[in-house]
Every structure is written in C-alpha cells, then in structure tokens.
C-alpha cells in the first residue's frame, strides 16, 4: 500500500511517500497508525497528536476506523488551510 504524508507530517516523518506491504494485523486506519508508530521515532512523533491528523483513502476523506486494503493509497495530513 502507498502511504503519503503532507505538510508538517511529511517533515516529521522525513518522507512524503512510503510503500509497504499491508501487515496481516492491519485492518483499518487506526491499526495502520499503530503499525507505523513502531517503524521509527520519527513516525512515533508524527502520530503523537491524532486530533490534528486527517486521513484520506484513495483521495476521499476517511476516518480512523475506515477499512483498508493492500492496493489502497492512504494519505495523512493536518487540517487543510487553503483559500
């Protein structure tokens, strides 16, 4: 699965894109976050305040309990500030 990061999340993680094989224990976004937090201290730090993190699955806004598949594109980002 493809994982994208934007804005300060990209800076904290140190990457804008990560490609991983979906671990068996990962069923939804929250499971994925728990998995990612174990990858590095940077990930742990990036996902510290979940209230300030939004998520999209295949370019649609999603929730932390949204179910995900191997072929999904997941994006993590802070609340938007355009306009």
């Amino acid at each position: 699965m493809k994982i994208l990061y934007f804005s300060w999340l990209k800076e904290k993680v140190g990457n804008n894109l990560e490609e991983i094989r979906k671990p068996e224990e990962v069923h939804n976004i929250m499971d994925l976050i728990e998995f990612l937090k174990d990858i590095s201290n940077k990930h742990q730090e990036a996902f510290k305040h979940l209230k300030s993190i939004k998520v999209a699955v295949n370019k649609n806004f999603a929730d932390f309990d949204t179910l995900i598949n191997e072929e999904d594109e997941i994006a993590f980002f802070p609340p938007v500030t355009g306009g």
Partner: protein
Amino acid sequence: MKKMKLLFSPLLLVVKVIVRVQERNFVLQNEIDNLKSICKEIPGALASFVGYVRDFSNGTKISSLTIEHYPGMTEKMLVDISKNASKKWPLLGTLIIHRYGKLNINDQIVLAAAASLHRKAAFEATEYMMDYLKTSAPFWKSEKVNKDNIWVKAKLDDEFAKNRWK
C-alpha cells in the same frame, strides 16, 4: 409542441464546471469572460471572489507564502464542491482556480466564481464554494516569518462558516 423552459431546476440546467490547480497566475477578467462564454444561457449575474496573500498573519509580518497540495484529491474535492453548489442553486457555471507553490505578498491565491441568471444564487454559491474550499480542499499554507517557514493552523471560524450551509 411548445418547449417548456424550466429556469430554476438545477438538475435540468447544464452547469459548466471549471476547476484548475496551477502554479501560474491568472487574469480575473479573462477567467470571467471564459466562464461567461461557456454558459448555456447568458448569465444575468456572475459573482467572483479573489483571495490574496496578506503581509500579516496573527500580528506577525510574513515575507512569502508557500502552498502545498495533494494532486488528484485537490481537483476531485474542488469538482465535488462545485457540483454541490450547483445542486443548491440554479447555476449556469462555476469556476475555481487555486494556485500552489511559492507566492509573494499581494499575489493572487484563489479565484471562485459562479454564474447564474440572478445575483442571489451567484453571490451565495460563490461564498459556499469558498467556505467549503477552506475546510475540504487539501491545500496547506506555510508562511515565511523571518527565516522560518511556519505551517498555518486551521481556523475554527472556517469550520463554523462552512456549517451554516448545512
């Protein structure tokens, strides 16, 4: 048989939707003329909003602005917002242009416009599109203050502004 003309059924009007996410600048008059020219009927009203880069943010002087976006999702959200506006008001056409990359003070950031037969729909739809853009389109601003780039925090007021349309 006499053809019936239903002026205020949004579903029967062919609404033209233009969405562009670009680095380059835009010329307001050209964009408005273009939107007007593709409308199926002559719009009696066209409202537009242009957002510019301010030199102050929360009392701090900024020197430039950088806008990041999520290619693909941004365009999709802007089209959704435009289509939803067309469901709420009898519009002939809508236009949203949003820039990304590095912008200087005074630069144009965003243009939203709505064309309709009458002004009320055009005004309200333009405001609606801006309110939703602010809270649903994946753009992130970073302001340059002295030598630091600071990510702009989302405003609760913008969320309230959006909710009044529900």
